[in-house]
């Protein structure tokens, strides 16, 4: 029981982290119709910028400065890169962001080296806040949850209570009408792209100390973020939230419980063959849940796409 509660908290941290990335990505997709492959690269830039800044003036200023810088980089990418490629069609845009992801990884390696950098949580948050039974919950985890929740609320307020938010919301469903009403859609695009990147940057700043800051960090998270917004339904903010939490809990619970495939098949009444050594499927029998945990989201995505191509909450064709 304690373990379930603790796993819920751990899964919530992972899920909210995913949400910080997927919310920006899904907003960008809804506005511009482009899946940004480089989105996780902005997450990585956030971590590296924060690392660099925190070496001079500490973690707390970095928490605010780094995302702004990432947002500016994102806006510049939109203005000078994506907008240029836009006229060649969506496939070209997708390929552009794919190339950009490769390039950003190379640039990060070029500037900061190929190994891990020493980016740690601030001293003031390095303690165990409370324990549930024997399980310590680090203060930094609660801090991550707080930041993510604050961002979610802020995002919700901006989208529903401000004029800019209204324009964005309108553009989600009726992009042509918004343009016809005379709004400066390219500027909104640039802004949304910048803000989306900045959100990814925030995620990088706070996740870097926990998940490690190294040139491969974008790749590890990158495709999962896609999976999240595809499962949630492209363009749906609520879908992104639900899918993020779902995937966060799915992977965390899968890693926490050692359920073997043999038990599962046994429960279904299927017995293993007597001689395992010759069977082509022998490895299936020794599989356990933690072994396949991290690839479950991909399975989920394929299933969702096959049976419901709009995703769980989507209403537009991808």
């Amino acid at each position, binding site marked *: 029981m304690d*373990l379930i509660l*603790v*796993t819920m908290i*751990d899964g919530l*941290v*992972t899920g909210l982290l995913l949400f910080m990335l997927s919310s920006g990505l899904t907003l960008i997709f809804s506005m511009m119709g482009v899946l940004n492959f480089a989105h996780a690269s902005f997450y990585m830039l956030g971590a590296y910028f924060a690392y660099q800044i925190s070496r001079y003036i500490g973690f707390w200023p970095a928490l605010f400065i780094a995302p702004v810088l990432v947002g500016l980089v994102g806006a510049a990418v939109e203005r000078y890169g994506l907008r240029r490629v836009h006229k060649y069609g969506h496939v070209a845009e997708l390929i552009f962001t794919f190339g950009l992801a490769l390039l950003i990884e190379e640039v990060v*390696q070029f500037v900061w*080296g*190929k*190994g*891990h*950098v*020493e980016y*740690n949580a601030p001293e003031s948050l390095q303690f*165990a806040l409370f*324990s549930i039974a*024997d*399980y*310590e919950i*680090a203060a930094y985890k609660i801090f991550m949850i707080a930041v993510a929740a604050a961002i979610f609320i802020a995002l919700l307020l901006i989208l529903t209570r401000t004029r800019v938010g209204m324009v964005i919301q309108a553009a989600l469903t009726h992009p042509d009408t918004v343009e016809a009403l005379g709004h400066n859609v390219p500027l909104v695009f640039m802004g949304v792209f910048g803000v989306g990147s900045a959100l990814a940057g925030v995620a990088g700043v706070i996740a870097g100390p*926990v*998940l*490690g800051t*190294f*040139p*491969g960090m974008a790749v*590890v*998270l990158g495709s*999962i973020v896609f999976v999240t917004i595809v499962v949630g339904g492209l363009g749906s903010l609520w879908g992104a939230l639900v899918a993020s939490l779902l995937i966060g809990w799915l*992977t*965390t*619970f899968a*890693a*926490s419980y*050692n359920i073997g495939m043999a038990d599962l098949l046994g429960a279904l009444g299927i017995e293993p063959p007597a001689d395992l050594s010759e069977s082509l499927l022998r490895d299936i029998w020794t599989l*356990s849940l*933690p*072994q*396949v*945990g*991290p*690839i479950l989201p991909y399975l989920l995505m394929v299933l969702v796409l096959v049976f419901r191509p709009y995703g769980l909450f989507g209403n537009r064709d991808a």
Partner: protein
Amino acid sequence: MRSFMRQAAFAAFAGLAAGAATAADNVRIAFIDPLSGPFASTGTNGLHQFEFAAEKLVNEKGGVLGGRKFEIVPFDNKISPKESLIQLQVAIDQGIRYIVQGNSSGVANALTEAIEKHNKRNPDKRVLFLNYSAVDPALTNDKCNFWHFRFDANADIKMDALTDVIKQNDAIKKVYVIGQDYSFGKAVAAAAQRFLAEKRPDIEIVGNELHPIGKVKDFTPYARKIIASGADAVITGNWGADMLGLGKAIIEAGFKGPIYTYYAAADGITAAFGESGKGILRLVSEGQLNPPPSDRVVEYARAFKEKYPDGNLSQTRIANVIEMLARAIEQAGSAEDVVAVGKALEGMEHDSLWGGKLFMRPQDHQLIQDVHILVHTNEGVTFDFDNSGYGLVVESTVKMASMDAPTTCKMKRP
């Protein structure tokens, strides 16, 4: 004309590196390891150690065979088996007779098979494979061949030594084994089970699991399970980001017992653990830096740090590779007759720079040496890693580990 065309073609295709075209009588050694991509820092650090060892241990002492120098020729394999085979061909074409490689048993496996086939098909251009770091036991068991020599203690030997130490620690009653889901991770888990059952049948293995390699973002759930199991010690063969992620999560979840690892040091990992891993992280490895076993080590390590301030002397066996190869070449009287050099290496006994004896076991070409259990700390550290003040200090030593361990190798000699 034809030979000119061939040479021109060769220069165009194989793209001779600017510095590679040097005196023909150097003994050239091809270093095939990742120099770009995610594992480049490990590869580059290994290259520096080879270059330094060749310079310091051979060339400054007048070279081999009356003045021939060692020259390390780097080839970037991008840690891909396919690229390794291409670079192997390029190296052989350049007339190189010695191949060194270490990162990834998958690559080592591809190379040893390719070299065996090459040597069979081209008896006039045979090469030797000096494996300095790939520790999959199969390479000196079922997959052994005459051309492959391993200078690191393999995964089984390390586990043998590690369990010798655990045997004497009565505080350890429960052990958790966790590793990456591939051949090496499985080999570590199997060896841990076998040796623990043999040496300490009272120890309970409370967890034995594998996780996908390089795919886990957050190791917290695994750490929770380890805490929940009530384990006194953790054994893991993880490396790279998986090692750092797992170790950090376990420590953060409040684990206080020893975490026995194979690869939790250098390449940024020591610095990233820092204070949090102090006294908790253990490493099983050959070679001793702290406390320095001799003045020679102090001098060698100082000179290395002077030349590469950002480098780590993390793969001490590299010095053994160079010293033993130099001796074998002297003994064989030729650097080109690799069969003679291979035969000289077989059964060679050597006093290691790092203290202790080395013995190249002829049955399987596995180097037998002292294996240490090292602890991650900042006390008594003369030579740290990552310039972090933290380093590895020898805690206990198993002399000539697994000297008599059986092997399934059936060596076929030319």
